[in-house]
C-alpha cells in the first residue's frame, strides 16, 4: 500500500474547481461545488480506514475486534449535512435568479461590475 490512492480525492477536488470555473450554467456550477465537497468526504473516510477492519458498530461483534476510526465517519456525516443544506440554499438562489433575469449563465449576470 502507498499514498497513490490519495490522488483520487485531490483530483476530485481540483476537477470540481475547474468545472466551476468553466461553468456556463448555475445548476452545473452548484453541482460542481458538490463535486469539490465530495472530495473532502472521500479524503476523510480514506484517512480513517484500516486494512481489514470492520465498521465501528459493536452490536454483532466483540468490541475488541479491529475497527475503523469512528471520528472520521461522524465528521463526514456533519460534512454531508453541510453540503446538502448549502446545495439546497444555492439552488433556491439559482431559481430566484432565473426568475428575475431569465438566464442562468454566469457570463450574462454581470450587473455587479465594479
Amino acid at each position, binding site marked *: 500500500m502507498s*499514498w497513490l490512492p490519495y490522488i483520487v480525492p485531490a483530483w476530485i477536488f481540483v476537477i470540481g474547481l475547474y468545472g466551476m470555473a*468553466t461553468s456556463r450554467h448555475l445548476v452545473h456550477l452548484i453541482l460542481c461545488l458538490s463535486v469539490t465537497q465530495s472530495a473532502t468526504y472521500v479524503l476523510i473516510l480514506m484517512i480513517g480506514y484500516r486494512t481489514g477492519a470492520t465498521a465501528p458498530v459493536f452490536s454483532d461483534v466483540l468490541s475488541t475486534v479491529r475497527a475503523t476510526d469512528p471520528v472520521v465517519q461522524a465528521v463526514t*456525516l456533519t460534512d454531508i449535512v453541510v453540503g446538502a443544506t448549502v446545495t439546497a440554499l444555492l439552488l433556491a438562489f439559482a*431559481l*430566484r435568479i432565473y426568475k428575475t433575469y431569465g438566464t442562468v449563465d454566469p*457570463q450574462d449576470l454581470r450587473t455587479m461590475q465594479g
Partner: protein
Amino acid sequence: MSPRARGVLAAISGLALLLVVLAGFAKLPDFGVYLGPYGTLVDELAPIQRKIPNAITAVNFDYRGLDTMGEEFILFAAVAGLTLVLRKDRRDTTDAPLPSAGLRGRADRSDAIRAFGLAGIAVTIAFGVYVAIHPHLTPGGGFQGGTITSGFAALIFLALGYRPLKRYAPHQRTEPIEAIGAAGYVLVGVATLAAAGAFLANCLPLGASGEFFSTGTIPVINLCVAVEVVAGFVVVFGEFADETRFEVDDEAEVEP
C-alpha cells in the same frame, strides 16, 4: 475574462493546486494505516463509558455533540434562508387557490405512479422511523432516518399532487416543529449543564448495553435531531413544490 482565458487560467492554476496538494498528500500515512489515537480510543472507550455499541453515534451525540448541534443549526439556517428567498414574492398566496397553469394535473398521473407512491409512503415512514430511532444500536440515527422519513412529502406530491401535500404538511405547522426540534437540542444542553455541570454531559442512567432504552441522553438528543430534520426537509419540499404553482414566463423580467 473571456471564457477562453478563464479556461486556460483555471486549468493552469488547477494543475498547480493539484501539485501543491499532492506534495502534502504524499506524506500521508499509507492507505489502510490509521495511526490514531483519537478513533482507536473512542472505539475502546465508547462501549464502556457510554454502554453504546455504535461508536459513531457516541461521537456524534456525545464526545463531539457540539459539532452536531452546529450542524443542526446549519440545517435550520439554510431552511430559513431558502424559505425567505423563495417565499418573498408570493407571500400569503400559498393558502389561496392557485393558478394551475403549467402544472401536470391529476389526470396525467398514471395509476401505477399513484399506487406505488401511496404504498411507498407507508414503507418510507416505517423504514425511516426505524432507522431514526436506533442510532445507538445500529448504523443510522436522527439525520439519516429523518431524511428518509421526510421522503413521504415528496411521495405525496408525486402520487397525490400539490394540494394534498399542503393539506397534510402545511408550512404553518412544519416550521414551528422544525424550530422546536432545533431548540430541543440546545435545551438538552442547558439542562445537562444545570444537572451535570457540563454542556451536553450525560445525566441520565445508561441502562444495559444493547437495550432500546439505554445510553442516557443520546436517544433524547437524537429525537430532537430527527424531529428537526423531518420537519426541515418537509418545509424544503413544500417550498419547491410551491414553485411549480407559477408559470415561469409570468415571473421572468429579463433585464437588458
